[in-house]
């Protein structure tokens, strides 16, 4: 019995490469960022959620306005995020309104 089990597990582990198409569906993202203490999240929603869902932002620790500014700059310069510079102030206002 033990031998049979051992053989079975070896067969299991000697898996051949897959041959069949694998298709999956991903769940919906978290949705829009909410208003914070009357500060609108529109600018953040319009500029930030094309590349990543909102939890990337809401999961962060409390960061300073300067740290968030550096993050916006990184998204723009490294990842090519088309963030309208005119929106920076409104995005930052919302980010630090926590």
């Amino acid at each position, binding site marked *: 019995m033990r031998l049979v089990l051992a053989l079975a597990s070896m067969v299991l*582990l000697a898996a051949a490469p897959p041959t069949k198409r694998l298709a999956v569906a991903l769940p919906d993202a978290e949705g829009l960022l909410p208003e914070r203490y009357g500060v609108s999240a529109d600018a953040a929603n319009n500029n930030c959620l094309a590349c*990543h869902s909102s939890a990337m932002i809401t999961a962060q620790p409390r960061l300073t306005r300067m740290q968030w500014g550096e993050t916006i700059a990184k998204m723009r310069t490294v990842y090519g995020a088309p963030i309208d510079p005119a929106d920076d102030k409104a995005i930052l206002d919302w980010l630090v309104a926590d």
Partner: protein
Amino acid sequence: MLTRRTLIASALAAPAAAQVDLGFADNGLRPTTSAFPQKGTMILQRSSPPLLETPISIFDAHDFTPNDRFFVRWHYPFPTSVDPARHRLRISGHVGKPLSLSLADLARLPRVTLAAVNQCAGNGRGLFAPRMAGAQWGNGAMGNALWEGVRLKDVLALAGVKAGAVAVRCGGLDAPLVETAPDFEKSLPIDHAMSDDVMIAWGMNGASLPLLNGFPLRLVVPGWYSTYWVKMLDHIEVLAKPDEGFWMAKAYLQPANALADIAPGAPAGPRVPVTIMRPRALITNIGDGAKLPARDFTPVQGVALGGDQGVKTVELSADGGRSWVPAQLGPDHGRYSFRRFRSALPLLPGRHIVMARAINAAGVTQPLTQNWNPSGYNRAGVDPVRVEIG
């Protein structure tokens, strides 16, 4: 206006998800989710691109992390439908004969199976003090699996690496939404790429890779952080010059010392790519801040990794590190695998801080003091667990 009626309505529309507390100083509550394909209950860090964390209880129960609980980390969007019969792995660059290989071609090479820990360079980032921006992982951005496939060096030999090659750059099917963003590609030094242990895997714990873990092929770089374990691998380029691409030259860099340790606020100084993992031990049966009944001996168990060496010893302390007792080690699945440990400590009623530290076969000991760097990589120190007995 929030009324009882709207509360009830919103509860009906979206039932409150179960939450876990990752124990961060700030903002450590995360929902759990079972909504992702081929995945059971995971800690949701981000839906898109997915960041899914493994609950610590899974490590408490398994030497090999089940595929449906294995952590997930993507930088960019990726195809959600992949036909392995049509998938090709292109080998190009500084080689004698560029190739385009099918999975059937790969399957004709000698097969290898290896147990190895796959750990994100930012595992535990949310536990650092002070905090930093980035994926806010607890300690569940890691897993251990039995990987099956072929050796990278055997694949490279088919193409014939030319003299003067210095690195091997690997990339997958994931691609940024914005065209100017840098494609996610990672490089290994040529000597490392030609070593025996680096694999191209299609199998994980006796099954195909889940799509979210890189179906149909991924690189396996035992002992090195997950950033090198390129998922949905579809191209390998042999380089005659060092890789100056963003993901090697600008990202995933750590201070140039073994512990990646600098004082918060200090100048960054010279930086090098993150590479080899450090020995770590994690207590998995007692959550930080737990209250346990008094008994003669309190069971303490967990999981350890040795980095690029096997785990030699795991030691426990309940007196702030003044004295240590060795734990009993579980089955040895090889130098790159998780090694579970268990022991029992005579904890009297009251408050205690229990610590576990790993020592690897090269004698590298997990430090008591936590290291720190601005990117939150390479967390290497002991994670103390506070417990109240009685």
